[in-house]
């Protein structure tokens, strides 16, 4: 084998190794409460194991669905990959720029105009001014709210707001796309447009991790599925089988 074959061979994008996550649910939110709880020997917190010994690798260009019911720990896993949370045990490694469509619109400010919000949020997601300038028109065109781009976001309808927020997130230059319960955005034609856009990203070789319990969309977008139940990985394989495992345990 010469070196070129090694270079062209797909390398992992995300490595998750023996990851543990325990949540400490605090019952106290002030010094006063913590102090009183200590005197009364009440428990200050209870712990809850959200993820146990999760291990998997996602190769570059793969699109993987993480499936599970509410409370299974799938969103926690996504937040760990995004770097919002840190694991208590094991390790997570990512390669390239990670961007999350995790509750889009988190950085929007109602008193700023649509234009200002596009710049602010694209910057929050890691773009610099030149990159945003270059993509600004695409972002606005995709959101279909050209006429309102200079009015304040608080005057937007919820649909307009979500379309703009989603449009910003999807135009960020990225290597790994993390998606949490998308495609609940806007009306049917816009959802279809989003789906096509995500498809396009996958075809460009971006790595994608989707968290959802919408089995239909997931089967459409992903090839591989990982099923998580009560914090434990129970299945990893083709997405169709994963959906079966989820439905009929």
């Amino acid at each position, binding site marked *: 084998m010469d070196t070129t074959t090694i270079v062209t061979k797909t*390398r*992992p994008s995300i*490595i998750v*190794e023996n990851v543990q996550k325990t*949540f*400490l649910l*605090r019952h106290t*939110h*002030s*010094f*006063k409460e*913590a102090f009183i709880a200590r005197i009364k020997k009440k428990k200050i917190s209870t712990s809850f194991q959200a993820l146990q010994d999760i*291990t*998997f*690798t996602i190769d570059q260009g793969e699109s993987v669905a993480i499936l599970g019911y509410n409370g299974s720990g799938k969103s926690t896993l996504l*937040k*760990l*990959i*995004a*770097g*919002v*949370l*840190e694991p208590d045990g094991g*390790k*997570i*490694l*990512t*390669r*390239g720029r*990670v961007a*999350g469509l*995790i*509750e889009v619109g*988190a*950085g929007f*400010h109602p*008193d*700023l105009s649509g234009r*200002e919000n596009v*710049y*602010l949020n694209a*910057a*929050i*997601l*890691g773009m*610099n*001014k030149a990159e945003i300038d270059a993509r600004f028109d695409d972002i606005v065109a995709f959101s279909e709210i050209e006429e309102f781009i200079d009015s304040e976001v608080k005057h937007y309808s919820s649909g307009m707001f979500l379309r703009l927020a989603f449009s910003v997130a999807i135009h960020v230059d990225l290597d790994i796309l993390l998606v949490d319960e998308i495609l609940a955005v806007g009306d049917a034609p816009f959802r279809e447009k989003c789906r096509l856009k995500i498809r396009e990203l996958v075809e460009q070789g971006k790595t994608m991790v989707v968290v959802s319990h919408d089995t239909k969309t997931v089967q459409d977008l992903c090839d591989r599925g990982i099923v998580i139940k009560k914090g434990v990985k129970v299945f*990893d394989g083709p997405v169709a089988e994963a959906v079966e495992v989820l439905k009929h345990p």
Partner: protein
Amino acid sequence: MLTKTDPVDLTGFSVPGRGNGILDVFRRRYLLRLLVRKGVSTRYRNSALGWGWSYVKPLTQYFIYFFVMGIVLGRNNGIDNFAVYLLSGIIVVNLFNEAFSNATKSIVDNKALVKKIYLPREMFPIAAVIVAFVHFLPQVAVLVVVSSLVGWVPSLLELGAILLGALIVILFATGLGLIFGAVNVSYRDAQNLVEIIKMLATWGSPVLYSYDLIARVLPDWLQTLYMMNPLTSAVELFHYGFWFSTTDGGLQPPPNLVRDSLIGLLIVLAITAIGQLVFRRFERRFAQDL
């Protein structure tokens, strides 16, 4: 599938959520600029006076202090150009109080972002401090006008003193803001401590009276502590920069101002470093505790 024994080339990989703290904030200057602009432009939107509100309080406060300390308690006669003396000290303390309390609230105020997207979180306290600094500049402009009216012509040394004073205050507020901003996430009553510190800042530095009065009543060790307070140095640097040259010299700057200011600078640098360490320790729990 990869098992643990597979050799994987780990070049180019990074651990998500681990940054370089404050350094990353300056690496992402563009975002910092936008956050500051947002902070400045949205603060008093939809209120009748707009930014004017942010001057109503300090102005009222200034006139109350001037009336009580200057006229009722007679400081007006004891300190030459008391109006300028008071103003130059009070804007320093205002800068500190504003920057410190904004920074403390900044993480909780931005919880929607902190919970969902990884950013260098130091971004928020630092942006809050910069917003406070922007807010401070018009107050400096007022001071420049007032002190010019009583014959202030700045020398290079005076300008240097003013810049050093501002630097000390900003670093002090940043360091404390990082500590309290982080602690405030888990313990919301940290904000009450902030109020106490703000009160101490106003009364524990020579803003409303002169340092020589304090010297008469405090025991030596407490007096040393008082003079070591970085805010005392910053206030005295501002007095030196804006006020001293306009007086008859009746009240000299503190004898060890240069030494104390340098010590103050070292203290605030240390506090900023400690702030960064504390912040990093607490940061791991932010997304959970918010």
